[in-house]
């Protein structure tokens, strides 16, 4: 059974490649800069990118099903706006959270229904959703609204002490819980496996008698829910709501998922890949800030190159 020994790595190869890349990037930083190889730097990767981790988890569902969701960045902005203005108006925190999550999932549901029932490219529908959500932000306020609510600020600034003197925020805990939940749903449940089936071949999935409608609409609801949750985390991180928050973040999320080894064509990939993808992006950012003299825009250039390399690698793997 030579196929058995060949198969196991080949399936995980893209994810493994990303992990190796992360280790290399981190090792490079540790060798080069003092204080890079500390637990807190790693913890900061999570703290500074918690919202992106959540976005990437939601995006993984959509991309695995063969779709794409361009609206997530705008939904993050809208969520910060709803959070900030809700708290400003004196709503209790639980109500604000509920309102934000409902807004995000409803937007996702609407986009999913339009994509499915009118059979329109997800690219177009979520592009429309992106403009809609961005526009809604400015309907609420064109100014940046800062968050002054006590409870909210307490949660935002609370530090959880880990062994070794490393501290993380609640954001990190929530993000990791989301990743765990996404892994369970995607890898262990019927819904999750059907997402893979639809991404592999939608017509086959339909003829196999699988509930494709539920899955195709469901992934956008999940992505919308994750976007609004990411928006809440982003509010905690920025402590403000603003219509120009998170511009272009959808592309960071897509980049993280793709660098994490998920095929843009759908059907192949892992939630964990998206997480590692985010960490790679974060490490590059940290490297450039440690370097000190390079413009932070170098991050974008490196991400661009990485993205291209990973797509090229995926391409050759698929052709093989």
């Amino acid at each position, binding site marked *: 059974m030579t196929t058995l020994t060949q198969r196991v790595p080949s399936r995980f190869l893209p994810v493994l490649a990303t992990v190796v890349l992360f280790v290399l990037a981190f090792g490079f930083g540790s060798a080069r800069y003092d204080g890079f190889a500390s637990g807190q730097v790693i913890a900061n990767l999570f703290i500074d990118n918690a919202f992106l981790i959540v976005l990437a988890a939601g995006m993984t569902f959509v991309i695995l099903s063969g779709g794409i969701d361009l609206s997530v960045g705008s939904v993050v902005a809208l969520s910060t706006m709803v959070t900030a203005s809700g708290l400003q108006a004196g709503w209790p925190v639980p109500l604000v959270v509920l309102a934000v999550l409902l807004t995000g999932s409803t937007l996702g549901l609407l986009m999913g229904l339009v994509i499915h029932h009118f059979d329109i490219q997800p690219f177009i529908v979520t592009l429309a959703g992106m403009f809609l959500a961005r526009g809604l932000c400015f309907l609420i306020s064109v100014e940046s609204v800062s968050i002054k609510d006590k409870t909210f600020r307490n949660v935002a600034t609370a530090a959880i002490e880990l062994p070794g003197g490393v501290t993380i925020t609640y954001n990190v805990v929530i993000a990791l819980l989301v990743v765990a939940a996404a892994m369970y749903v995607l890898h262990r449940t019927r819904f999750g496996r059907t997402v893979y089936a639809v991404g592999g*071949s939608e017509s086959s999935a339909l*003829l196999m008698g699988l509930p494709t409608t539920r899955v195709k609409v469901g992934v956008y609801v999940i992505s919308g829910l994750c976007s609004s949750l990411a928006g809440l985390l982003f509010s905690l991180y920025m402590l403000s709501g603003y219509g120009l928050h998170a511009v272009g973040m959808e592309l960071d999320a897509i980049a993280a998922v793709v660098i994490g080894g998920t095929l843009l064509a759908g059907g192949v990939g892992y939630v964990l890949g998206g997480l590692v993808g985010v960490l790679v992006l974060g490490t590059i950012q940290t490297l450039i800030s440690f370097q000190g003299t390079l413009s932070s825009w170098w991050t974008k250039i490196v991400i661009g190159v990485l993205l291209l390399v990973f797509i090229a690698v995926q391409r050759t793997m698929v052709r093989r």
Partner: protein
Amino acid sequence: MTESPPPVVEMRGISLAFPGVKALQDVDFRLFPGEVHALMGENGAGKSTLIKTLTGVHRPDAGQVSLAGEDVAFSSPGEAQHAGISTVYQEVNLCANLTVAENILLGREPRRLGGIDFPAMRRRAAEVLARIGVHIDPASSLSEHPIAVQQLVAIARAIAIDCSVLVLDEPTSSLDAGEVAELFRIMRVLRDEGVAILFVSHFLDQVYEISDRMTVLRNGTLVGEHLTADVDRRTLIAQMIGRDLGTLEAIEDAAEKRKPSGPALVRAEGLGKRGAIEPFDLDIRAGEVVGLAGLLGSGRTELARLLFGADRADSGRLLVDGAPLKLRGPRSAIAAGIAFSSEDRKGEGLVADLSIRDNLVLAMQAARGWTRPLPRRTKDQLVEKYLKALDIRPANPDALVRTLSGGNQQKVLLARWLVTEPRLLILDEPTRGIDVGAKAQIQQLVTTLAAEGTAILFISAELEEVVRIADRIVVLRDRRKIAELDGSVTGVDEVVELIAGGAAPEKVVS
């Protein structure tokens, strides 16, 4: 064959129209438990549509479907499956990115605590696979297995539930003889367990071997229902195509009259490629039809691809008109007048989303280069000529190739190569998966072309066809040319024996 049990499926007065086409008109159909029922008809006769009406993919405009005496109206394949109708479609409809076990059981997998119980699922899948005699690792990814095994996995999926009706829509088109025998064994077991099996195949031998009863459709209408034992082939074909077999006999006569001689147009000397085909010698003269016979995987397509330059030979040489020709790729082959019509007409031949006209002129335009566009009038003349010559239906040059039936797509592909007026035409499985009528037309065309002086290399899995049409038959086994026979005096049995390895042939030493 007793008719005592009531039919498990009864379809009455089924009509269904698609935009511009009446796919089914007032069709009745019955399926009895414990019987293999063959659904016969040409391509486009409505077989697949009728099946899809039964399995909930389409909903009929008129008529009633009943299952075990109760009226049903399925709105999705899922509902039909729950009611006990399992289907294996013509093309493998599984997800290659999932594991074998998932493909068999997804949608009804064993669960524990809300999640899928993967160990139990693999065990269950292994049981089902063992039942049909397939021994592969259920945890392996489906894409690792060849199409034939994937087809068996699709059948495993179909019988993984306790189905009362099993629909097999051309399950044998990608299987070799041994696998077909295995499938038939499984079908007989299921039939004896009382399952009603609906079977569609273009291979008449298989239909006669396995089926108990048959229903014949033509142009979306019911022609008749018979016990298989009561109908001979001639009657059946006449019913299917609505005309007699004179055409087929004329083809055979033509093959006998043709006696091409003269120097070889194309000659291969020790041409070979490691891992694809052992070095072989081959002469093809102008006006000659050379048939290539052999099992799936015997190197038929590989040989053709070498002649066309699609693969690079690593030994031997190719001569055209006696002069050595270095093939750098299909472009140089086309320039030398060699055309290759691929067996995979969807993947390698046609552009499905272009019109018949655009597909037709594609090869010719490529030969001229983009700087010299074909004038519209020339295009129209060409298209009109070939639409008529090949009887392509619909005869509308603007129809998208995607919407055509398999036989008509094949004709468009042929026409596309004919436009370039090739001197050697390689036809790889030109008649696979197409109906009897279109088959006869394509064979007719091959003989006409040969009479006009085109050299033809004809590859087909159907030996009868090869024997009928070819002047000379090259037999391949295990990626090696093992014999060359005179087509006019050779019978199918002789070729079969060679392929099976019974007789000692004149060996071409590698």
